[in-house]
């Protein structure tokens, strides 16, 4: 039964997440935290952090890890399969049909219409992460870390992996 739940939890982000892997983050969060309760929001935020610090596609990293935590190696296989296979199989099977209609306004509208929903879900997660930060690190440290990491990421264009490693170091030394 667990494997069926894992399959469903990752199938939805796989078939509804328009906008590439990052669009799957809030949909995975909804299933894993809100619906099935496999993780707390704090644990999920660690998954997002570590996934961002490592290379490679983000949706499959999350699926592989969470699937493994919930259902072992086979759980990981099921989660990754549900994330990747449906849209890949559609792409291979429907290639000629899709090429014919790829400029159709209907097809373009699909991504356009889903994007604001993803934005809402990402916004909700952002506020939840902010709330957890305030609880965990306190207001002063949270504000400090947010300002500094924003400058590093967006202004100075420092590599996200390096920023996360620095945050890990800072947290381990000063926030334990």
């Amino acid at each position, binding site marked *: 039964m667990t494997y069926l739940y894992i399959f469903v939890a990752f199938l939805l982000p796989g078939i509804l997440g328009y906008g590439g892997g990052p669009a799957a983050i809030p949909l995975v969060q909804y299933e894993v935290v809100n619906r099935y309760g496999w993780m707390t929001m704090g644990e999920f935020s660690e998954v997002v952090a570590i996934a961002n610090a490592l290379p490679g596609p983000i*949706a499959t*990293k999350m699926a592989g890890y969470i699937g493994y935590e919930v259902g072992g190696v086979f759980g990981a296989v099921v989660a*990754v399969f549900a994330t990747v296979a449906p849209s890949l199989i559609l792409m291979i099977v429907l290639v000629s049909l899709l090429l014919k209609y790829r400029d159709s306004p209907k*097809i373009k509208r699909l991504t356009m219409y889903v994007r604001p929903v993803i934005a809402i879900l990402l916004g909700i997660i952002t506020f939840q992460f902010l709330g957890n930060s305030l609880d965990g690190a306190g207001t002063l440290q949270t504000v400090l870390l947010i300002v500094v990491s924003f400058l590093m990421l967006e202004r100075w264009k420092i590599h996200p992996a390096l920023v996360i490693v620095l945050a890990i170091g800072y947290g381990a030394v000063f926030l334990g």
Partner: protein
Amino acid sequence: MQLKIFLAFFRVGMLGYGGGPASIPLVHREAVEHYKWVSAEEFGDILALGNTLPGPIVTKLAGYIGYAKGGILGAINGVFAVMMPTILLMISLFAVLSAFRDTPWVNGITNGVLPVVTVMMAVLTWSFIKKSKSDFGWKIVLPALVAGGVIIGYLNVHPAIIIVLLLAAALLQKDKTTEKENESDTGKEGK
């Protein structure tokens, strides 16, 4: 061939930071420039095709190009090579962390990382809002965001239901002017 497919997508997986979309240029380098499996034009087609479908983009590219060059085994090979190494890294990193779960410094790591992830998610949110704004304009996007936020955040409607309704609307909506424009465009291409 299978070894080349593996190596190409292994490199993409290990060198691509910032999730799948950020890895697209790396796939281009391997498949178009290095191995010349597809022309730049074909690559553009494949990418456009992948973007019309949901789900992660890099695994779609890896699977599709792997399939074109090495059949079903090639598809499995490409997808496996692009994602497996980092999944293993992720599982082993968390194994190390959970071994020290109850020590204060692991707790500190969470506290230090959370604000940074908050920033990353905020930036990602903003990029989705900006793209929506260029599609619809603020007058539609702002009320839609507020309404959607209430429906999902307070009324606890499952986002999948809203997405499915919107997908249906996108497909069923008759847009005569753009539909005609598109028909004449494809007509020209046909000639």
